[in-house]
């Protein structure tokens, strides 16, 4: 019953938050309207999100986000160094294939996004069966280390949260 | 304030969406509603004409905002006349379309048709310069749709040209509007009239530029040389009835020139003077020549009629160029005449094309079904457009010739009108002979099966109505001209128009 009205509860929450952010202040009236939107819009768009992934560990998710933000800042400094100071000749770009244990599309996407936002890596493609990510490294003298790092630092955490 | 003033816009504007919304898959229903709406438009426009005849200009404040701050509609004799003309034409064209089944050859004909009417009526009724642009766009985009109705490679390519050329015109319109606003700070036509007349001397050059840009914009619509290039292919390749409806679109340009250059940029305005008349005159002469020579030079029938349309615009503009009440009265008569005549010829051309299967005049073809009847109609249409008696074209031509005499040197204009008439006669005679007579040179063959013998009466009724209009214009020339003279006097006297707006007085 509840699922019928809240096909994606987290999304509803996100929308309510979005509305409150947009009106830039809290008022009960706004909240009521936000809830209307938070219920209504997911219902309208539910057809576009047929499956209903459960994200069981909001706390872990928050921790993950913080970790990624931290990594982003670090990544930026690292990339800045490379961009500013590394001569072209010593740059060692590389392609690596990261085999996936994740299966949920949401989880895989989150991982791919994380890879792109973090140090020196961009996820460039997925294998046709969805079981490996193609990653391009800006400067990776040791590609295997990159794979290991991704799997350990991000994929394992995501697996805990989603699967 | 009578709400009826806006009815010619709102009626099609509501009917169009309704057709799209509720009956887009039922052609019969579309026809019924479209025709009923157009007939209602006709009735309304008759009433508006009556109202406009008995009173001075009436202003309708849209949104109830006082002029010049909101948009206004203004009903005067001129706008009422042109709305009525549009409605009459629309009824005939619609009957033809329904009779021939043109509307079934593509989608959304009736909705586009209603929107076309909305745009045209809106353009005639508005009292706001920018709003005129908006309704130009409404009528243009609807016309694009109608022009390419039923598709086909050549038609689509011509459509691209038509759009491109008119987009250029629309862009120029915006440049002109921005310039005029930039100088005067207003968009209301009455307010502009007051302010342009009172401009400081140092603004004269810029307002002249604005005026000349407007002139060119409307020249594009009115197919004034050298802005006529879009017309021949567009009209020739558009579906026949659509081209017939387009006969009134060139008049939108003529209307706008008349309105703008009597109300706002009149000959008495210090900044502009007779500058525009001096441009219009030679351009009109050239238009006349290009159009009428085109009649003789055209290889196809529809193209011939398209050039006839240009030629008639040349006559019209030649009469308009002096911007004097007397010539204007004659021009208004001729305007109504040439619209009906051009439209009738386009419909007849379409009848011929439908039956002959080719537009090319010289292409040998056996006699078409109903050869005699259609030949007679063509003969009448040709007479009308060439300005031969007994139809109103002759009267119109006489009126213009006579009126021109009182406006200064007229020998050139007279010679042009008369000599080009001869060229037109030669061209039309050649075309008629090739189409309807030469077919009998070889013994008649059975009509090929791929050309269905259309025998419905409705298309003939439509053409008949238009020709009957010409006859009525001839027979009733006296009273009609009396009315036109009063209308022309009103057009050339901006004061009542301005006063009707109750503009706020400048606080000095």
């Amino acid at each position: 019953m509840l699922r019928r009205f809240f096909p994606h509860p987290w999304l509803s929450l996100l929308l309510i938050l979005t509305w409150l952010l947009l009106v830039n202040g809290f008022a009960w009236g706004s909240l009521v309207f936000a809830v209307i939107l938070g219920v209504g819009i997911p219902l309208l768009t539910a057809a576009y999100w047929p499956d209903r992934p459960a994200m069981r560990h909001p706390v872990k998710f928050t921790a993950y986000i913080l970790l990624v933000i931290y990594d982003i800042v670090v990544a930026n400094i690292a990339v800045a160094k490379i961009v500013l100071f590394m001569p072209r000749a010593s740059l060692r770009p590389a392609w690596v294939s990261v085999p996936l244990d994740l299966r949920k599309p949401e989880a895989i996407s989150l991982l791919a996004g994380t890879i792109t936002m973090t140090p020196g890596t961009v996820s460039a493609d997925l294998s046709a069966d969805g079981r490996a990510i193609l990653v391009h490294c800006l400067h990776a003298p040791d590609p295997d280390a990159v794979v290991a790092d991704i799997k350990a630092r991000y994929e394992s955490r995501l697996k805990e949260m989603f699967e | 304030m009578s709400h009826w003033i806006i009815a010619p816009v709102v009626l099609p504007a509501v009917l169009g969406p309704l057709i799209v919304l509720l009956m887009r898959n039922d052609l019969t229903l579309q026809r019924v509603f479209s025709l009923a709406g157009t007939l209602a438009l006709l009735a309304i426009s008759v009433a508006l004409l009556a109202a406009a005849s008995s009173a001075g200009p009436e202003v309708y404040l849209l949104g109830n905002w006082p002029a010049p701050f909101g948009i206004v509609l203004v009903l005067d004799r001129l706008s009422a006349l042109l709305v009525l003309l549009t409605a009459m034409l629309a009824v005939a064209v619609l009957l033809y379309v329904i009779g021939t089944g043109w509307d079934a050859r593509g989608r959304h004909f009736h909705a586009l048709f209603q929107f076309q009417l909305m745009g045209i009526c809106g353009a005639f009724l508005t009292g706001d310069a920018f709003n005129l642009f908006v309704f130009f766009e409404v009528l243009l985009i609807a016309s694009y749709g109608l022009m390419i109705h039923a598709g086909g490679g050549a038609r689509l390519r011509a459509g691209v040209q038509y759009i491109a050329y008119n987009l250029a015109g629309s862009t120029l319109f915006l440049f002109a509007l921005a310039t005029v606003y930039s100088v005067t700070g207003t968009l209301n036509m009455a307010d502009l009239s007051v302010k342009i007349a009172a401009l400081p001397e140092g603004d004269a050059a810029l307002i002249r530029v604005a005026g000349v840009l407007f002139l060119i914009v409307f020249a594009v619509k009115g197919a004034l040389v050298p802005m006529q290039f879009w017309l021949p292919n567009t009209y020739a390749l558009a579906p026949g009835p659509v081209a017939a409806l387009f006969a009134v679109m060139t008049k939108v340009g003529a209307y706008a020139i008349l309105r703008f250059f009597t109300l706002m940029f009149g000959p008495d305005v210090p900044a502009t003077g007779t500058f525009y008349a001096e441009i219009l005159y030679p351009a009109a002469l050239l238009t006349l020549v290009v159009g009428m020579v085109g009649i003789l030079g055209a290889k196809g029938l529809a193209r011939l009629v398209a050039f006839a349309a240009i030629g008639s615009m040349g006559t019209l503009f030649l009469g308009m160029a002096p911007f004097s009440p007397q010539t204007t009265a004659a021009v208004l008569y001729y305007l109504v005449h040439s619209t009906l005549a051009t439209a009738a010829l386009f419909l007849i051309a379409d009848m011929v094309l439908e039956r002959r299967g080719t537009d090319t005049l010289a292409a040998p073809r056996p006699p078409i079904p109903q050869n005699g009847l259609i030949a007679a109609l063509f003969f009448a249409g040709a007479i009308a457009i060439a300005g031969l008696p007994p139809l109103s074209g002759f009267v119109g031509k006489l009126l213009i010739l006579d009126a021109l005499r009182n406006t200064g040197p007229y020998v050139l204009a007279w010679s042009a009108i008369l000599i080009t008439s001869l060229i037109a006669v030669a061209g039309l005679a050649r075309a008629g002979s090739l189409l309807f007579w030469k077919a009998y040179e070889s013994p008649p063959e059975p009509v090929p099966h791929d050309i269905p013998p259309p025998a419905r009466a409705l298309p003939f009724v439509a053409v008949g109505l238009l020709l009957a209009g010409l006859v009525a214009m001839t027979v009733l020339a006296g009273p009609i001209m009396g009315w036109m003279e009063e209308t022309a006097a009103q057009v050339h006297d901006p004061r009542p128009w301005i006063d009707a707006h109750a503009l706020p007085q400048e606080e000095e």
Partner: protein
Amino acid sequence: MELIAEVVVSLLLVGAGFFGLVGSFGLLKLPDTMTRLHAPTKATTLGVGGVLIASMVYFAFLGGGLSWHEFLITLFLFLTAPVSALFIAKAQIHRAVPPADLPPTGTGAEWAVLDGKAEARD
């Protein structure tokens, strides 16, 4: 309090400007499209993110009150940047990267962008 806010805003602005510039500079300096892809997706995101946070702080403490829109913009940019990068990368692989340069997927399937199955018409 205001001073702290000012300092924070200024630092954020300087940092953001720096990263933003580096990101764009990377676009200029790095040798090929794939490497260039790294610079803007990260550095510019941080650059603009910094500006947005600076703006939030500024309006919260020095301007007319806390403004949350910047948060929304940041969120949006972070959500979309990887997708943009992925698509540009795919386009680049499709157009300019020889398939031989790519590592094997290790799963038996081809990389999606190279995969032929979508062409099959049934």
